[in-house]
Every structure is written in C-alpha cells, then in structure tokens.
C-alpha cells in the first residue's frame, strides 16, 4: 500500500506539470459554463415574449433547467457525454496516455520499475492517480458551473432550487464509470505499445465492436422470410435491437451524465408513447437504470482491469 501511495504522489507530481491538464480544465471549467450562461442570456432576450413563448414553450422553465446553478451543473455533466467523440473519452485517453503511454514513449519504464519494483503498485498507483485527476476535473467543473449559474441568477431570473443530492450522486457515479474507461484506455495503450494507436482504438473500437455485434445479432437466427413468419421475425429483430444497448459499454458509460437530460427529452417528442416503444428509445438509453449501468460497468472494469494487470505483470520492459 505504501508503494502504491508513493506512485500516486509521483504521478500527481508529474501530472500537474502537464499542460494538457490545464487545457482540459480550461475547456470544462471556464468555456462550458461561460457558453451555457451566454446562450441562456441570448435565448432569454430573443425568445421571451415571442410566439414560441406564447405557444407553450415556457422560457423560464427552460432557463431554470439549463442555466440555474443546478441546471448549469447538469449541463457541465451532460454536455461532455453528448459530444461525439465524447469529451470524457478525450480527457481519459489524454490522462492515461500521460501516465502509462508516456512511460514507453520516453523509455521510462526501466526507471520507474527499478525505483518502484512492485509492478502491481506501479500500475494501480498510476490508474488511481489518473482517476484522481479526473475527479479534480469533474469537481472543478461542478464548482465552476455552479458559480456561473449563481451569477446567472442575477439576470436570468433563475433560482437555486432543484435536487442537489441526486445531481451529486450522478456526478459521483459518472466519475466511477470513467474508471472503467481509464482501464480500457490503459489496456489498449499498454498492449498496443503505441500511444496514438491506443488513443484512436479507445475512441473507435467500442463503437466498431458494438456495431458489428449488433449486425451479427440481427442476422443470426434470421430464417428465410415467408408471409407466415415475417411478423414474428420483425418482432424478434426489434426485441434484439432493443435489448443490445443495455449491455454496451458506450450506452452504459455515459448513462449517469446523459440521464440528466431525461427531464428535457421527456418534454419533447420522446415523451410520445409510440417513440417510447420503438427501438430508438433504447438507443437513447432511456430504458437503462443507474443501478443496471453501474453493474454493467463494474463487469467491464473487472474484465479490463484483469487483462491489463495480467499483461502488465508478465511483459518484459524493453
């Protein structure tokens, strides 16, 4: 445990001297809250009193949902998950690349592993250090967005009300889910022995595998079509497509962050029962639960963490 703490301290020392951490913080802590409040102000000025306001779109409700202290904090949590590729992947891969990939790039494994001979302590110390850096980024995003929302209350007419406990829980769970992504990125960057390839693979491999798996699942067991089985086969296909994303890494990974958007989505066409019963509803992840996604991510974490540890312990340092 002492050895691991030493590695965490050393990684933290190194990590806070990397410019990329401050670029990520600048984007997430400053740019996003400023954009949120600025757009809310533009929305308020242009839409208040317009025909949209008269036909039922309540400006104040929207502003409260998006630019109140709680709303801004929700945006800061959700927005990185809705970008494509997500900003969470970007942050995780950059930090993992600095902690694990860079050791190979700069030929530093030989130094690190002699100073700290316990490979288990080195690997998990580095992973925990990345997770702490992600925690600092997430916490900073929460605090700065709340601050921006607080400033917004002075001219947007928003209030502090809302379910803060639930939001903090979502932040915490999303941070936990990111650890699975940290393990996944660490595994790819270490096994592929190439930082760039590892980052690219982390970005695109899950979507590729999930896409191929969906196609395979949709076609396997598909029998020759006739007028008697057509309906059953269509229903079977629908059921397959509905249930697949429940186990996908990508849909579960961002679920806590994306779930903050559910109240907004439920006000639009997605509230339509016809949409809710379609396969597209499950693609949005709306039939997941926080508990389900937590278990799925834990499962992935065990697999990725196990593989990474196994590979790290047995590989020679060249």
């Amino acid at each position, binding site marked *: 445990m002492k050895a691991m703490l*030493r590695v965490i301290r*050393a990684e933290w020392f*190194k990590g806070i001297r990397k410019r990329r951490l401050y670029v990520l913080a600048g984007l997430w802590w400053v740019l996003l809250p400023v954009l949120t409040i600025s757009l809310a102000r533009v929305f308020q000025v242009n839409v208040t009193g317009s025909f949209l306001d008269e036909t039922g779109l309540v400006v104040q409700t929207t502003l409260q949902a998006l630019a109140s202290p709680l709303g801004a904090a929700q945006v800061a949590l959700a927005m990185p998950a809705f970008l494509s590729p997500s900003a969470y992947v970007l942050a995780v891969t950059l930090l993992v690349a600095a902690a694990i990939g860079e050791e190979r790039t700069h030929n530093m494994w*030989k*130094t690190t592993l*002699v*100073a700290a*001979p316990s490979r288990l302590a080195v690997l998990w110390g580095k992973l925990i250090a990345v997770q702490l850096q992600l925690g600092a980024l997430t916490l900073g995003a929460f605090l700065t967005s709340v601050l921006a929302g607080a400033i917004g209350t002075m001219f947007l007419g928003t209030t502090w009300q809302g379910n803060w406990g639930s939001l903090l829980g979502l932040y915490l769970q999303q941070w936990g889910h990111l650890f699975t992504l940290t393990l996944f990125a660490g595994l790819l960057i270490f096994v592929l022995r190439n930082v760039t390839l590892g980052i690219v693979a982390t970005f695109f491999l899950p979507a590729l595998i999930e896409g191929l798996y969906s196609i395979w699942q949709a076609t396997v067991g598909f029998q020759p079509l006739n007028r008697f089985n057509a309906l059953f086969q269509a229903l079977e296909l629908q059921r397959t497509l509905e249930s697949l994303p429940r186990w996908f890494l990508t849909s579960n990974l961002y679920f806590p962050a994306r779930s903050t958007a559910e109240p907004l989505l439920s006000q639009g066409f997605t509230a339509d029962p016809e949409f809710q019963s379609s396969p597209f509803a499950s693609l949005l992840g709306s039939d997941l639960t926080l508990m389900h996604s937590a278990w799925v991510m834990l499962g992935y974490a065990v697999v990725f963490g196990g593989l990474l540890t196994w590979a790290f312990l047995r590989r020679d340092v060249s």
Partner: protein
Amino acid sequence: MGVTVLAAHNLVKRYGRFTAVDHVDLSIERGELVGFLGPNGAGKTTTLRMLAGLIRPTSGSAEVLGGPVPGPGLRRVGTMIEEPSFYPYLSGRDNLRYASLLHGDITEQRIDEVLAFVRMENAAQKKVRAYSQGMRQRLGLARALLHKPDILLLDEPTNGLDPVGIAEIRENLRTVAQQGVTVLISSHILSELEKLVTRVVAIERGSIRYDGSLRGLVSRMEERVVMVRIEAIDAEKLRSALQDDAVRGDDVSLHLSSGPEGLTRVELAHQAIPDLLRRLLNHGVDVTEVHAEGDDLEGAYLRLLQEDGRPS
C-alpha cells in the same frame, strides 16, 4: 569471503530460437567494482535487465541482497541501463523529485547533494530536453545514486561522452566505490574499465567466457604472440638490423610497411621482447619507442574472444 549481494543462478533468456543469455552464473560481493565486458549483442544489457527485474528470465534466477528478483531488494539498487531517459518536459531537478517520490523518504537536501556530486547544480532548473548527452549521463548517475543504493548497475555509463565527461564519470564512480557501494559496470570501451575495475566478467554470445581479476585477464596475453611496433632514431638502421637473422633472433617475424615513413613491426612472444631490445641496442640501434599493440585490456579481451572462434 565477503557477503554476496548480487547473484545470477543459471540465468537463461531466449527470444524465440535466439538465446540472448545462456546459463549465466555470477556472484558479486559487497564493495566489489566489477567490469562487465562484451561486444555489442553479447548479452550484457539483457543480463543487467534481468538482474534489475525488468525482464523475466526464461529459466534460472537472480538474487539481490539475498532476496529474489523481482523483489523488495531492488529498492536498494541504483541503475542506469542503456541511455538514461527522463521526462523531457520536466527540469533535471523535477526528474529527480519524481524519482525521489517513487523511492520515498528522500529529502530536497539529498537531491542537492547528488546534483552537486555530478556537478549539475547550475543546470538543474533547465528542462531535460535542452540537455546535452553528457548532462543526461550525469543526471542519470545522480538519479541512480539518489536513494544511496547498496548496488549500482551501470550499462555503458560513459557512452557518448567526451574525454572530459568520461574522466568525470570515472572519478564519480571511484568515489562511489570508496563509499562501499557494489558496482557492476558494463562497457565496450575497455580502456575505461581498465582504469576503474579490479574484477572482470567477460561475456560473449550470452555465455561467460572469463570471470576473474583484471590482472589475470591481461596476463593471459603474456604467453601469447604479440605484434610489437618499434621506432628508432634511424629507421633504416632499425630495419636492416631486424633483417639480420642474428639480431632478430628465432621465432621473430618481421612486418615492414612500405614507404620511407612505413612502420616497423615484429611478431614475437611477449616474453621475448626484452631480449630483442637488448640485441638491437648491442647492434647500435637507438630505439626510441616500443609499443606492443593490444597490450592492454582490450587486446587481452580480443584474444580471449579469438580463442572462442570469434574474429577480432
């Protein structure tokens, strides 16, 4: 009999069909300064990496301070294996701070000490990316010494250094050895080891060819035929004297290079050199210089390799 602090038992490392290290046995006692000799690709670095726990042996085992490798004993080992590497975006001091955090319990004062020891205190604030090769080597030594190790494993520590840098590193290593640190230093700059070590382990094609005193290695060549270059005030007189069988003597063969500035060489048994010089002096040849080519550690080592069929 001293305490064995570093040992290799039947170490083997194979990469597919290629055997990089072949049943190496090694035992080094506390305070020894051992040279690890071998041409490129002989298995020096692979052996050092196995001793440092960086690569796993195919079979056999290594021990450091009585414990297995890898193991906690490695925390008492300082290494500089191949070219020292650093985080280029950190300063020299910050690279040492990073290493000190990994080691634990190392004060800022100790960092100052090792920086002063390798004469890097004035460059410590610079980013490592701006360092010359010599500065990197010295910083690498500082990092290896940071935690006051009991054992130092150094792989070609003077590689790429100018003569002044080489002399500085050599001086540093002498000081370290005087403090009781056990040092295993590999090099193919044999003249460097000659000035530093007392014991030599020579490795070739993954196997140990010689393990003994430096003097023992050099003395091997005493019994052997060597090539001697002779210079005299009157080169022509020297040449004509050597062409006379009575002066040259039996079992001495003459090698003359063409041209007026050509070199005069004779091939003879090492112990026959004094007699030849005496005969030349008696014949009125004023000899100014005699140089037995390869009459050093390098010469001895190359001959050792020739015995095993490797061309010199």
